[in-house]
């Protein structure tokens, strides 16, 4: 037990840094320095420099800025509008009507833009007034918006998966493919909930959208084609082994530029703005990576992660017990950290524990991204709830209650993922490599 005192000291140091508002990447760097100082008297400056250089100049990381750039280009196109115009004739006759459009559109847009905040800001602003005008209950439109905007993070391309893959050194392609089925199951759960509302509740039964002609459906399919082709092309090329994620990302950028050119939104101005937007997000993640790479170095020098894993092992927790503990930990951390920071901050110590427990690291990546999504809409202080509050001006209590059913459905999906690990692991088995 006494050998765990340094662990407590290091966690305390980290929390003091974070609490004082030190930028998270720099706080990780400082904690790394503290760890090295505690465990050795080496002159760690040169090691810090080489660690940072080798972790940043990594080819497998290059998919990250490319996918971010692709999202930035599409974010500035009219894609969100055409996505909704296209989905509406296809889905609106289902019980639950336009709410399905909200779910499908938000998940698709979140998947390609890689940011649930951007999805809420663009798509949410567009759909909330429309759904209100059609008379849908606000709790349902806000709830589905909250849920679906985080769901997209599971569907490729997922920036969180790239960060996770780089940190634990697992194949990013396999992680992408592993997220597909859980993402689809989750979206079906959301859609099923809305469907049930449309079938069973009096209000829902009363809501039926006007009928559509085949012609309209045909136009709808053409309108959603760019999104389908982008997501399908990226996922498919990785699945069938035509391209590794970085290559799929480069082709995705080309595709996004073509879409934007067709929609006549590709100007010199939007091109430069999309690049600068990508620079800001990339540098933000880079600073986190700088800190976590040196913290990793310090941790492996100290041998603490192994010690901690042994200590956890001494409780003889079942893998399930460990997962329950980690879920709780991540939901708490998710209250004040974003997905990237959460992955980079915890994986240093969590990775050996998870490996010791015999849990597949690809599966754990899906688990981690899903819990990170749940944290975004955890009542009462999930980040997306505040975003929706800011957009709609509704009271946070109302937003939290609206999102609660979606949170519970995500929890159900997490239980399913734990009960049936094949949900994540089945599809990667069939990948062509």
């Amino acid at each position, binding site marked *: 037990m006494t050998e765990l005192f340094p662990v407590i000291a290091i966690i305390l140091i980290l929390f003091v840094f974070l609490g004082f508002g030190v930028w998270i990447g*720099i706080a990780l*760097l400082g904690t790394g320095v503290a760890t090295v100082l505690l465990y050795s008297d080496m002159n760690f400056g040169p090691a810090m420099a080489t660690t940072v250089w080798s972790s940043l100049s990594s080819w497998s990381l290059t998919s990250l800025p490319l996918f971010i750039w692709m999202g930035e280009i599409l974010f500035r196109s009219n894609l969100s509008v055409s996505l909704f115009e296209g989905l509406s004739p296809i889905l609106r006759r289902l019980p639950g009507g336009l709410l399905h459009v909200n779910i499908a559109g938000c998940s698709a847009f979140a998947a390609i833009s890689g940011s649930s905040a951007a999805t809420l800001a663009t798509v949410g602003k567009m759909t909330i007034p429309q759904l209100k005008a059609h008379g849908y209950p606000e709790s349902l439109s806000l709830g589905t918006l909250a849920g679906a905007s985080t769901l997209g993070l599971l569907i490729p391309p997922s920036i969180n998966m790239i960060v996770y893959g780089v940190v634990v050194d697992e194949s990013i392609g396999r992680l992408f493919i592993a997220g597909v089925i859980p993402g689809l199951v989750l979206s079906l759960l959301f859609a099923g909930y809305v469907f049930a509302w449309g079938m069973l509740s009096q209000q829902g039964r009363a809501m039926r959208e006007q009928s559509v002609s085949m012609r309209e459906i045909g136009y709808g399919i053409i309108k959603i084609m760019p999104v389908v082709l982008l997501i399908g092309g990226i996922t498919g090329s990785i699945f069938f082994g035509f391209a590794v994620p970085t290559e799929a990302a480069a082709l995705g950028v080309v595709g996004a530029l073509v879409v934007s050119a067709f929609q006549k939104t590709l100007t010199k101005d939007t091109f430069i703005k999309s690049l600068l937007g990508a620079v800001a997000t990339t540098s933000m993640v880079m600073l986190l990576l700088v800190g976590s790479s040196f913290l990793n170095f310090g941790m492996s020098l100290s041998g603490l992660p192994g010690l901690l894993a042994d200590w956890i092992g001494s409780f003889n927790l079942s893998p399930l017990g460990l997962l329950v503990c980690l879920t709780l930990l991540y939901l708490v951390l998710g209250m004040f950290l974003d997905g990237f920071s959460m992955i980079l901050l915890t994986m240093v110590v969590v990775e050996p524990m998870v490996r010791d427990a015999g849990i597949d690291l690809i599966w754990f990546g899906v688990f981690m991204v899903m819990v990170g999504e749940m944290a975004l809409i955890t009542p009462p202080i999930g980040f997306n709830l505040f975003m929706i509050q800011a957009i709609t001006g509704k009271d946070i209590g109302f937003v939290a209650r609206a999102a609660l059913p979606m949170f519970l459905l995500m929890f159900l999906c997490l239980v399913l993922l734990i009960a049936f690990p094949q949900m994540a692991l089945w599809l990667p088995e069939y990948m062509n490599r």
Partner: protein
Amino acid sequence: MLEKIDTGLNTIYRLCGYLSALCLALICPMVLANIIGRWMGVFVPGTNEIGGYLMASAGTLGLAYTFGLNGHIRVSMLVDRLGPSLRKPVEILSLVVAIALVGFLSRNLIDMVLLSYDYQDRSSGTDNMLIWIPQIPMVLGFVVFSISIIHVIVASLFAGRTVFVQRDTI
């Protein structure tokens, strides 16, 4: 005079941001060259390594630019609750922590480049490049980032400018 330095520095951050954007954009043709080369059965040497160098350059040259946009994430939950009289010293304290660490890192990165230059180290990959060349933009990125942190400290201490309020996480 002081204002001139202020605008001058801001121009430098923006220029580095543009450089970072250029590096980021160049990653794309680098990867495409690799794909096309593979289709045509030609091996294009060094594309992977150069992609990595562009990655490091893009990520670090944009650090100061992103800092100016309040783009680096932090936990602002506690700091936001502080009154103005307490908030300023706490903000400056975290800036001092930041400059101590980033400054230390920058100094060691400079040493690393000088060493690579002295020994004329080459990359072990297929690009066989002198390694100090791609290391320069990364070092420049960190040095400019350090300068921008000092800039904010000085501005908030002496120019009485409000210490900037960070946007929230994500």
